[in-house]
């Protein structure tokens, strides 16, 4: 079989000149107490006593242990002065922002526990704290970084309020929702949150993850991270299916969605399958007025990482053409182990115009950045 390898010299300048927008950057806290300034005494006490309660098995580890320390970090991203990868702005600048000439980095904090907290009041408070923390600790120090409004989807009223509160604050570029909630995101109970996103001009970023309590396959809990990691695309497929078939985009015509950290090569086949089966079962979903493929084309953007690596490298470009170059945005996932290097992740040359779209223009337009 073929494996694409890097035999080119670094091409850093190419991305710098573009003003690269990285659609997935993970900042981290130096200490869990970093959130305390943004929490009331009640929630500080709760954080320090009972702490986060989600729907996973272990107190301080994911269900599927990763393959490198720190729950799967890039080994060269641990700050010299201590702390977790992603917690040190100086290092983030050296390894990402300055190195690649990043114009904007979209922050997706996977820290703070508010997104999947079972005590929804605590969850909402933690989301608010994580949002203040992003804005004040990160955006104010580094304006190239953009924040994501975190909300706990099981507390709809608080989520809507939080979205409204951040509207107009240019530090926030999007709303971040973990796709694996209690129910598929397209279900009606979540519509007020989705409506609030659109009404307040926020696209939605659906980064992989969440703690639904449901197994990562429909056939039960797998044994290995070797199964969990490649299950992320299936999660994304279910997400697209839910949003389209439930009629979210018919109901909220100006909603825009970015799928983050699921790759993208699965999308054409899913689109064909949805169109085909929709024709058979359309009497079940009369609220849909267009083909699923049309809703997907109008409302769904994908980010690249972890980028698929076809056995024939040029097949990646074919897939991108099938999806549409204007719907794909590059993301690194810095500083996680499976992050992608913008210089080497794509193993075949991309025409200049498409490169410009992939690394910059699509994201600038999606996020309304200037």
């Amino acid at each position: 079989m073929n494996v694409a390898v890097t035999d080119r010299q670094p091409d850093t300048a190419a991305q710098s000149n573009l003003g690269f927008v990285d659609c997935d950057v993970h900042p981290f806290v130096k200490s869990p107490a970093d959130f305390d300034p943004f929490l009331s005494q009640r929630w500080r006490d709760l954080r320090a006593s009972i702490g986060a309660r989600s729907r996973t098995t272990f107190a301080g580890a994911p269900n599927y242990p990763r393959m490198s320390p720190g729950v799967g970090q890039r080994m060269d991203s641990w700050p010299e002065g201590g702390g977790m990868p992603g917690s040190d702005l100086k290092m983030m600048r050296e390894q990402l922002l300055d190195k690649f000439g990043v114009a904007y980095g979209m922050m997706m904090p996977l820290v703070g526990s508010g997104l999947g907290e079972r005590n929804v009041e605590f969850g909402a408070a933690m989301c608010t704290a994580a949002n203040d923390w992003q804005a004040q600790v990160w955006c104010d120090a580094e304006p190239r970084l953009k924040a994501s409004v975190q909300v706990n989807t099981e507390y709809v009223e608080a989520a809507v309020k939080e979205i409204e509160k951040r509207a107009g604050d240019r530090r926030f570029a999007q709303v971040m929702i973990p796709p694996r909630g209690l129910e598929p995101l397209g279900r009606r109970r979540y519509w007020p949150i989705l409506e609030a996103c659109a009404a307040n001009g926020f696209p939605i970023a659906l980064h992989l993850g969440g703690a639904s309590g449901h197994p990562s396959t429909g056939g039960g809990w797998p044994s290995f991270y070797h199964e969990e990691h490649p299950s992320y695309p299936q999660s994304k497929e279910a997400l697209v299916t839910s949003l389209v078939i439930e009629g979210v985009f018919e109901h909220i015509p100006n909603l825009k969605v970015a799928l983050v950290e699921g790759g993208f090569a699965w999308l054409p086949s899913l689109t064909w399958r949805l169109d085909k089966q929709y024709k058979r079962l359309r009497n079940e979903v009369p609220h849909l007025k267009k083909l699923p493929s049309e809703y997907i084309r109008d409302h769904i953007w994908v980010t690249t990482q972890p980028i698929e690596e076809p056995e024939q490298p040029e097949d990646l470009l074919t897939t991108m053409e099938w999806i549409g170059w204007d719907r794909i945005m590059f993301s690194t996932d810095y500083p996680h182990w499976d992050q992608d290097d913008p210089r080497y992740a794509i193993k075949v040359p991309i025409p200049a115009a498409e490169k410009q779209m992939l690394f910059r223009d699509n994201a600038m337009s999606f996020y309304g950045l200037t």
Partner: protein
Amino acid sequence: MARHVVAQVGEIAPGTCKAVTVAGRDIGVFNVNGEHYALINRCPHEGAPLCWGQITGRFESDRPGEYRLTHVGEMLRCPWHGWEFDIKTGQSWCHPESVKARTYPVTIVPGEALAKGPYVAETVPVTIEQDYVVVEF
């Protein structure tokens, strides 16, 4: 082809690696159970600095549920995507024929011999009492 002095013998402990830049090339010099080897410090996959990777053994198995650790200290896991490389040959575990990290020949040379040349000692001061790790390319 030139010979580059990259370390004193004894400087790189067994099971560790020294990252050097010699004549514009980033190279990792490894001490594998007392023997020295040199690999390019750039993963052939996405360019990660290999010297930040973990030095491990081969995780092997003949059948599900049976585990065996062999070649301890001879394998390097890329610090990013975890691709495994044989430090001695540069061969990747998954695609040994088609994916390799470039290797460089390494010799141990006494300081006395170095003094006679032709060696390039860009970063390592040389004395005749010491033995040195020399990489050729």
